[in-house]
Structures are given as C-alpha cells and as structure tokens.
C-alpha cells in the first residue's frame, strides 16, 4: 500500500461514524496506489511446511521456500532438469566414476557470518550419511566413502562404487550445505548461503524472506518475498485478483483458472513436473501377486476419461513409472488400452470371482479422492467390489507406506528419476523381480549418458510389462502470475520456486 492508502486507514480509524468508515472502505477498495518499481513478491502455496529444513524432513513445501533461495548445495538443477554448478564452481569426475573433485566458490558466507569451505562439505555430507541421519534421501550419501579437503576451497568426494546419478543427486535440496554452528536451529530458522535470508514465519499464514545483501553471487532484483499458504482455491483466486498474491505456481484448481485466462492482468502459464499418479497395488497380497490381475485392473480403468472427469484434459496418461517431462521418457501409455471385456476375461482366467473385495486407501488430497472414487466405479464395472478407505496422512504413512498393510492406494510420486523404488528390497509395493533389480544395478552404475538412456527405457518397459502398479497419469501444472512478472519457473524438474532470477517489468 502506498502512503495515501495508509492515511486513509488512519482516517477510517479516527472517524467514529459508520458512514465515514464505509466511505473509506469504498475508496480503499477502488484505489490501486501507484508504485515506482516493485521489489516485493508474494507467492502463494497450497501447503504450509512443518519445518524449514529439507535435510531432515521430506515435505515438498520446505523445498519451495528454501531450495536455491535460502539454502544452496554444491550443485543445482536448472529448469531444464540439468545439473549446474553452484557452491562448487566446477567439478570433475574420474574415469572410474569413484572420485569427484569439487572446486568451491570463494568468499561465501552463511547468513550468520560463518564461512563456507570444504569442512562444511565434510560436515553436511557426513551428517546426511550418518546412521542416525534423518535425511529423507540418506541413500544418496551412503555410497560416499569419504570427503577429503586438500585445500579449503577444494573438496574431493570418493565413492564405494560408481553411481551414475551422483552429481544429479548432490544437486537435490536434500544435499544442501548447512553450517555446523547453526544446523540445529534450521527447523524453525534456516541459515544457508543463499541469495535470501529467512526473516519470519507466521504459522498458518506465511514465511518472509529478505534479500541477502552479502550474497556471493549476483544480487537479485526482488528484495522481499512472502510465501503465503492459501490452500483453498477460491481464497487463492481472490488473493490474486485483489493483489494479495503476485504469483501462484501450480494453481490448485482447474475450474477457477478460466477467470485468469480472460484477464489481461494475469499470465496463465502451463508447465510440467515429474509427478506420476498411480494406483499402487500390494503384490504381497493375493490376487495382486498375479500379473494377469494387475493387467486386468489397468484395462478396466478408462484413464483418459478420468482426466476429463477431474478437469485436467491436458494431463498425460502414462504407462510406466516415468513422467512425459523426463528426457528419458518412453511413451508406453497405449500398453493397456481401456477394455473392460478383456479385463473381465483376464480376471476370470486368474480365478478372481466377481464381487471380490478390494480396499483402496485414499489419502486426504483432492486428486486422490476424486481419482479413487472414479477408479472404484470402473473396477465395479468389471465385477470387483472396490471399497474406498479414506485415511489421514499419518495413518497412510504408518499403515500403507511403512507396514504395507493395504490392498491398493491412489498416490502421486513426485520425485524425478525414482525408478530405484522398484529395486528396493523392502518397499510398500511388495514388487520383487530379480531381472528388474539386476537391470537397475546396471543402470545405476553406468556413467555413459547414452547407455543410461537406453537402460532407463528398458527399465520402463519392464515395469510396463509387469505392471506392478496401475500407472495412471501425470498431471500438468498450471501457473498463474502477474503478467508483468518475469523469470518464474514454469516447469518443476525438482521442487523449487527460485526467486533470484525473478523481476518485475518496469
């Protein structure tokens, strides 16, 4: 608000009469104070993070706020999904893939003044790999044999065995550099090396970041960023229209988007993210241990129709555990076309009687609830009795994810390149296939990009054949922001809302 707005509010405060109050209200509503050059930014997000430390908690909203803004790693992932240097100016990999030499950026300080050098790398990676580590991606760090510091600005990381994706892994927010002196306070008050400092957190409302004027890199244009948590689509719409928000990446409602597409003040920008919505099946349970049953389920469900019904006609049907935005993506979406008659035949062949009960656990999210309801209806059409079991997140985590006590569940996996899930010995899918595991080991150890691409395609095909889960679709993301705003990420190859490259058009 400009100075005139403030004066008006004061007048409204002093005026005792309702009339004066109402007049001020009307004026304040119609006035848009002119500003020279805006240097603030308010970004809307659907969920509030529980803490602000991505190295101990897997919640996605933490990464939106901190990744690349407050916290930085040695490397980063750019909008195209490529690995780029960050706190490491450059790096080299030995021919056998066991040794990474990182040349560190000089003159870098944490927000509390602590210096960044190789000892911080040792500390951060050591902490993430430790046996009692809470790091959500601890497996990234387990192959690290040691971090040596030949000089303060050089870090040499040696691995037990070659890991083809190591540089990519180290660019995740989970591999952020944290200072030994401030790490314990990072939950409520993260301290990193990034272009923005944490300023304040009003629980249930917003987190404010301010520009770090001592930043080692290029100074960003935006001075103050407010991340506001507005989950309700109507409220988000209102906040954008009234100027309470400048941007909302991944706008939460399709139905309300039409308001912005016809409004020249806003840009509605399509983008991609590597999400995969699946109907996860528990192979440890009969009848899901039978591949015919899993294929039958895939053929019983009309996936394009579901996309219509949940108002995302531009969503993409997938046929394996890979999103179309991924460079390695192979289109297998036609592998199991909608064919209820064939589905019934397969079920009968597998000895599954009509009326067999399947409980589908539904986590409390819109897409899961809607998709679950539709999936249940389609399974009903081939004679199965699908029962929806709504569960809260904690119950989903403990019952489905940890104890694999479930038949089926609708869930989105949002991480990029997570084909390793199907090679894990204990994962909630209950999928065990020696052939897949061997193929994955080969992929994981391969350093040649071309070969990795081929192996990834083979892995995807193998999954499509076995259909351990019914792969449903990948949901597009649609961003809404002020038409004068430049530099926001359209795509989301990794959870992040980087602000440093954002600016207002004059």
């Amino acid at each position, binding site marked *: 608000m400009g100075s005139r707005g403030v004066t008006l509010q004061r007048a409204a405060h002093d005026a005792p009469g309702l009339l004066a109050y109402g007049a001020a209200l009307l004026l304040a509503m119609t006035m848009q104070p002119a500003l020279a050059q805006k240097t603030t930014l308010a970004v809307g997000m659907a969920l509030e993070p529980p803490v602000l430390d991505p190295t101990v908690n897997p919640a996605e909203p933490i990464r939106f706020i901190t990744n690349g803004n407050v916290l930085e790693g040695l490397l980063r992932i750019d909008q195209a999904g490529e690995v780029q240097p960050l706190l490491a100016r450059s790096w080299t990999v030995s021919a056998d893939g066991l040794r990474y030499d990182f040349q560190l950026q000089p003159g870098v300080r944490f927000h509390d003044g602590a210096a960044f050098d190789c000892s911080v790398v040792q500390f951060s990676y050591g902490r993430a790999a430790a046996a009692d580590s809470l790091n959500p991606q601890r497996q990234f760090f387990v192959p690290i044999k040691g971090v040596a510091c030949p000089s303060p600005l050089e870090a040499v990381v040696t691995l037990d065995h070659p890991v083809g994706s190591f540089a990519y892994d180290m660019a995740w927010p989970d591999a952020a550099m944290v200072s030994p002196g401030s790490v314990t306070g990072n939950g409520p008050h993260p301290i990193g090396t990034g272009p923005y400092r944490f300023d304040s957190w009003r629980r249930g409302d917003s987190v404010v970041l301010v520009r770090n004027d001592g930043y080692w890199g290029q100074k960003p244009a935006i001075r103050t960023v407010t991340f506001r948590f507005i989950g309700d689509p109507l409220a988000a719409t209102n906040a954008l229209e009234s100027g309470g928000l400048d941007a909302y990446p991944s706008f939460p409602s399709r*139905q309300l988007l039409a308001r912005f597409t016809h409004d020249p003040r806003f840009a509605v920008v399509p983008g991609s993210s590597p999400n995969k919505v699946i109907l996860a099946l528990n192979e440890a349970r009969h009848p899901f241990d039978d591949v015919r049953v899993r294929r039958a389920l895939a053929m019983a469900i009309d996936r394009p129709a579901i996309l*219509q019904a949940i108002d995302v006609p531009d969503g993409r049907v997938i046929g394996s555990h890979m999103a179309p935005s991924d460079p390695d993506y192979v289109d297998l979406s036609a592998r199991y076309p909608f064919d209820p008659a064939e589905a019934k035949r397969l079920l009968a062949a597998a000895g599954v009687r009509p009326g067999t009960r399947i409980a589908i656990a539904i986590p409390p999210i819109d897409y899961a609830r809607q998709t679950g309801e539709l999936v249940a209806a389609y399974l*009903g059409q081939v004679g199965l009795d699908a029962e929806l079991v*709504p569960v809260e997140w904690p119950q989903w985590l403990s019952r489905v994810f940890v104890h694999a006590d479930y038949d089926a569940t609708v869930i989105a996996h949002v991480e990029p390149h997570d084909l390793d899930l199907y090679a894990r010995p204990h994962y909630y899918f209950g999928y065990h296939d020696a052939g897949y595991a061997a193929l994955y080991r080969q992929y994981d150890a391969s350093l040649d990009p071309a070969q990795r691409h081929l192996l990834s395609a083979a892995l995807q095909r193998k999954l499509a054949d076995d259909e351990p889960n019914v792969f449903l679709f990948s949901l597009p993301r649609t961003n809404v922001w002020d038409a004068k705003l430049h530099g926001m990420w359209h795509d989301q190859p990794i959870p992040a809302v980087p602000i440093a490259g954002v600016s207002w058009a004059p």
Partner: protein
Amino acid sequence: MRRPAPPRHPSLWAGTLILALVLVPAALSAVWTPFPPGAIDIAHRLLSPSLRHVLGTDPFGRDVASRLMVATLNSGLVCAAAIALGGLVGIPLGLLGAAPGWGGALVMRIADLGLAFPPLLTAAMLVAAEGTGIAAEIVAIGAFNVPAFMRIARGGALSVLHRDFIAAARVAGRGRVAILLEHVLPNIGAILLVQATLALAIAALSEAGLSYLGLGMPPPLPSLGRILADDQARIFDAPLLVIAPGAVVALLVLGCNLLGDGLRDRLDPTLAPVR
C-alpha cells in the same frame, strides 16, 4: 396468548409438508432412484437440468437428483440414530437423576460435561482416533444430545412425582421402576417428542457440517455436506451443484423446526419455547 381465532397450528402443517417434500424422495431412494446414484458417465458430465436429469449431472456424470436423494437418506438416518442414542442414554439418566440424593447432582454434572463437547470437537477426536465412520459421527452428535434429554426427563419426572396419582400408585405397592415406566414416562412423552424433533434440526446441521469438513460418513456414501464441499469450486460453471445440497439441508432443518414448534403448540400450549 390472546389472539382471536388463531389458525390451527399452521407451523405443524407447514413443517409436515416440507419434511414430506424432503423425506419422501429420500425414503424412496432406498428402493428406487431415477439413475443409479454411483453410475459414472463421463460423456454426460455437468449437464444442465432437463426432464431426464431434473437437477443435471455432476462432474463425473452422475445424476445429481439421485445422489441428493440417497444423501438425504444417509444424513437423515445418521441424525435419527444420533437422536435415538441421545434419548436412550439421556432419558434413563434423567429419570435416575430425579431420585433424591447425590444422584441428581451427579447426573447434572454429566449433563454439563456433555454440553461442553460440541459435536464437532468430539467428532474431530473420534475421527482422529478411529478414522471416519458412521459410528463416530452418530456418537459425536448423539453425545451432545444426551444432556437435553436428561434435563427434560428429569424436570418432567420431578414435576410428576409430586402428584397424587403417583402417591396412589406407591401406596398400591408399585415399585419405583414400574412407576417411572407406567406413570412418569407417558406424562413426559409429549415434551420428549417435541425435543426430539427440534434436536433433529440441530443434528441435521451438525451432520452437514461434519461431512462438509470431511469428519462425517466416509465416501463413497453420498452425504449432503460432502457433496457441497466436493463441488464448491464449481460455483461459477455449475452453481446448482453447490446450491442444491445446501438447500436440502436448509429444508430439512426448517421442516423439523416448524414441526417441533407446531407439535409443542398442539401438545402442550403452556410450554414455554426452549429455543
């Protein structure tokens, strides 16, 4: 009141009429609906009202009228069960509390406790503990209804117990329980009926609120509050989806209130209105 020739219980008739309008289709849904309420037909989604689909279709192509009929039945049954629970627990406790001694004080303490737990808080805790379920919802709404029944039963019993015919029955050697059942209960029947009708209105509001918040009966059972919550973002392109379920709740509540008021006027003109 000193009104010349008042219309004979207009609210009784209006209430009965409105309730019939809502409840007859709901009851009918147990045996027949225009379309199967869960049948998904995506080719015919979001249709406007027509002769075929009186209230149009929802985003999944389901017939809105059919779903509302079933949802009303579900909500109505939950409310009825909750009121029954409130009465079955509250009335005996209230009669017990009419006995002289510390029993009365204890019973009133329980009533206070029950009133301090609005359905939403109880439901929130139960749902957190057990997950959503019809039982949790019935208990949450029912528990809040116990105190009202207790108070009325106790008050009624206290006023009746002093009358002559009770003394006569006692002299005749009837036991305490027999007296309560044969003499006290019939005498407070009317006021209990009025209370049940009015409580039904509040229960309908609570049920709708709970299922709106996702604390009510679990999907895919259609319930009025959840249909509204599910389609709330449709408020622009299909406002009827949001307006219709709320209107059914409002009619249900209105009908119960009118019927309750009318019953009270008719059964016991001396009664002061409770709410």
